């Protein structure tokens, strides 16, 4: 059981996070749990999603390399996410 309430995606899609949740579902990264947990603070969740997208999806470093690093660090932190 998560240590704070995990918000329903149906609920989140009706909030200002709706477009970002749909992007998560389409692209599968980050997992929509990103907003299900952080959606308690909508503005922050939105801002961090935009920042995450910038560091992950833009720039000169190869995206596939970033994906390996992302999984590497997830496993290092014992994070199932």
């Amino acid at each position, binding site marked *: *059981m*998560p*240590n*704070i309430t*995990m918000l329903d*995606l149906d609920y989140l899609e009706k909030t200002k996070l709706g477009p970002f949740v749909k992007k998560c*579902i*389409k*692209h*599968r*990264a980050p*997992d*929509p*749990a990103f907003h*299900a*947990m952080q959606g308690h603070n909508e503005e922050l969740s939105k801002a961090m999603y935009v*920042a*995450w997208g910038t*560091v*992950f*999806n833009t*720039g*000169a*470093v*190869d*995206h*596939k*390399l*970033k*994906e*390996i*690093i*992302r*999984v*590497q*660090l*997830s*496993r*290092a*932190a*014992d*994070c*199932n*996410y």
Partner: protein
Amino acid sequence: MRSASAKRDGLTEEIIDEGIENYRESDRFTENEKIALEYSELMQFEPEKINGEFYARLQEHYSSEEIVELGSFIGFNVGYHTFFRTLDFYPMFSPDGRLVSQEESRRIYGTRPTSHMRGPMARATGEHGAEPKNED
């Protein structure tokens, strides 16, 4: 759960595992990619080793702009994965791309992720051939 665009570009689970566990010896990765993976590994386990000498090595492979991009990405993920781990939730996506309940996700992923950092953990602790902490 994996990046759909990275998958489209040819990234496989096998390459991911090799990039995490065996990138140093692997011939699948360029020297540029290897030092980026080392950068990430050190940032997580031994940040004190990321010193001027290491940045000088990085600069042989990446511009300052790229180093800032890599460092920001790695730092962002180190922090977020640590925070998310403490919240104790599971991915909403299964590995094959289905949205699943927390109960099903837990059954799929177990109490810890599979392939638990055998390579990096062994290197950081000096325990070569260390077994994963948990496999359930």
